[in-house]
């Protein structure tokens, strides 16, 4: 089975974010980056399916130069090869424009299965996979926790709200958006890291023709605080005593 995993590089989870003076994006200079969390699970699912069924795993990533690091890590974990769409300054902030980039880079591949994360930690659209499926003409399912190959397709376990699930059957080729946490992530081995250096990363230049974007990100900013909370930020002992006092005599909940 030929499986594509879409992976995005995003600022590390505990980053302190500052809006850049232009108000269009964040200050990127001092940030560290990592793979978008659900994408790590999408990649893991791809690698496990390959172990079961044989075939090939291809990672695809649209991002600037620094994304090479994330791509190398994917290769070190066992991904066979990668496609890097080099978006030098900024990756499109419109999921439709981005999915078009991914889809045209995948045109020649004809994958059996495309896996994406269910949501990116930075934009948080929760859309790119579904949009990509529509562009590629593939059936899809979202928020997937488990994939079971069957003789004539796959059976997937979809997460619904409030602790409910649903099984869905679909034919291949198909696209799935993968939920975090369903399996354990592997680490790259030393051998894997060594091998990664020899693996192919196909670089793709995004077509220059700007899409007619359907939405425009006008400005970004820190949310205004509607803070109704009382904050205690003194020494831990002092703060703890203040809190207990408030809980006992103001809120009267303990």
């Amino acid at each position, binding site marked *: 089975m030929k499986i594509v995993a879409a992976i995005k590089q995003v600022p590390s989870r505990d980053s302190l974010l500052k809006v850049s003076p232009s108000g269009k994006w*964040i200050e990127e200079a001092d940030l560290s980056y990592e793979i978008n969390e659900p994408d790590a699970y999408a990649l893991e699912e791809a690698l496990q399916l390959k172990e079961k069924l044989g075939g090939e795993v291809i990672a695809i990533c649209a991002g600037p130069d620094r994304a090479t690091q994330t791509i190398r890590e994917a290769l070190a974990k066992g991904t066979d090869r990668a496609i890097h769409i080099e978006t030098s300054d900024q990756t499109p902030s419109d999921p439709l424009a981005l999915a078009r980039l991914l889809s045209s880079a995948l045109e020649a591949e004809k994958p059996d299965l495309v896996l994406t994360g269910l949501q990116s930690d930075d934009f948080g659209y929760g*859309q790119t996979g579904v949009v990509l499926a529509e562009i590629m003409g593939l*059936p899809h399912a979202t928020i997937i926790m488990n994939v079971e190959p069957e003789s004539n397709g796959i059976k997937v376990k979809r997460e619904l709200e409030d602790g409910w699930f649903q099984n869905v059957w679909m034919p291949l080729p198909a696209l799935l958006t993968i939920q975090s*946490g369903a399996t354990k992530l592997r680490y790259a081995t030393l051998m894997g890291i060594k091998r990664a250096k020899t693996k192919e990363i196909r670089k793709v230049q995004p077509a220059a023709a700007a899409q007619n974007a359907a939405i*425009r990100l006008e400005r970004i900013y820190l949310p205004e605080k509607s803070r109704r909370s009382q*904050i*205690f930020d003194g020494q831990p002992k002092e703060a703890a005593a203040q809190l207990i006092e408030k809980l006992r005599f103001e809120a009267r909940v303990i």
Partner: protein
Amino acid sequence: MSGVLAILEQRDGKLHKMALETVAAAQQFGAGLNLPVFAAVPGSKAAAEPLSGYKLDKVHAVEHDLLKDYTPDGYTAALRQLIEQHGPKYVIFPHTYQVRDYAPKLATALGRTLVSDVISHRIDGGALVLVRQLFQGKINADIRFEGDAPHFASVQAGAFRADNLQPGSAPIEVFQPRLEAAQIRTKPLEIFRESQRAVDLGAAEIIVSVGRGIREAENIPLVEKLAAALHAELAASRPICDNGWLPMERQVGSSGQTVAPKLYLAVGISGAIQHLVGMKGSKTIVAINKDPEAPIFEVADYGIVGDLFQVVPAIIEALGK
């Protein structure tokens, strides 16, 4: 139609709990833009009935045998026909798991981009500006539509209040799309629930809830001690349960339990929307987090900014006094 169309969700003939707030959002957009407001309910006429009591120009009950069970192919094809026939300017959805599954496909099929998970709006120079969150709630973004209608948006749970709904009376009209079984490529199978809910967090008066700030499984006893000192139930954010550090049944949030105790202590939890929807009805909320900008402080009544590994022992000690 050329108005604002709210497309709602139902299951087994009952409207989803976000239906009315989505209608409220559509009414607000409609009032601001001076446009009539419509609603549509795919899959069940019975579910559409309660909407006849609100100020809407019309409610479309989108009915077809092939829409009885939800599929992204079926819903997309049916709603595309409704939209093409009636030409709404804005199409508004609740940002539910089902909408996440098909609305981006529907928008793409019509060459548009859905603005997902909107938290508020304003009208600026006669145009709609939508606000959505980036970086799990740490940053906001203003978004405008470009190009031609229809424009698509989904609204976040709790962002628009159903108590602002305008009552009225609306005719219900059946819309029958042309669908064929061969168009529907996926086959929905059984719906089921998994975790045995041995603990009923819903009944707890005090909940101590722990998040990824706890760093590793070995540190869980620290919050267990805090829970014991408060006679509280222990709960967690999703990653803690995913890692198996606490059982799934203790997960609070959109895919776990919804709780509303007297006191909810969030320890090392950032406050992502999927967590907040499960606990923001709590009477008193306390947040302990080292990041003063963490979104959890937005819903907290009391907060301690600091390292939980120092703060939690200090609270346990203070409780003993």
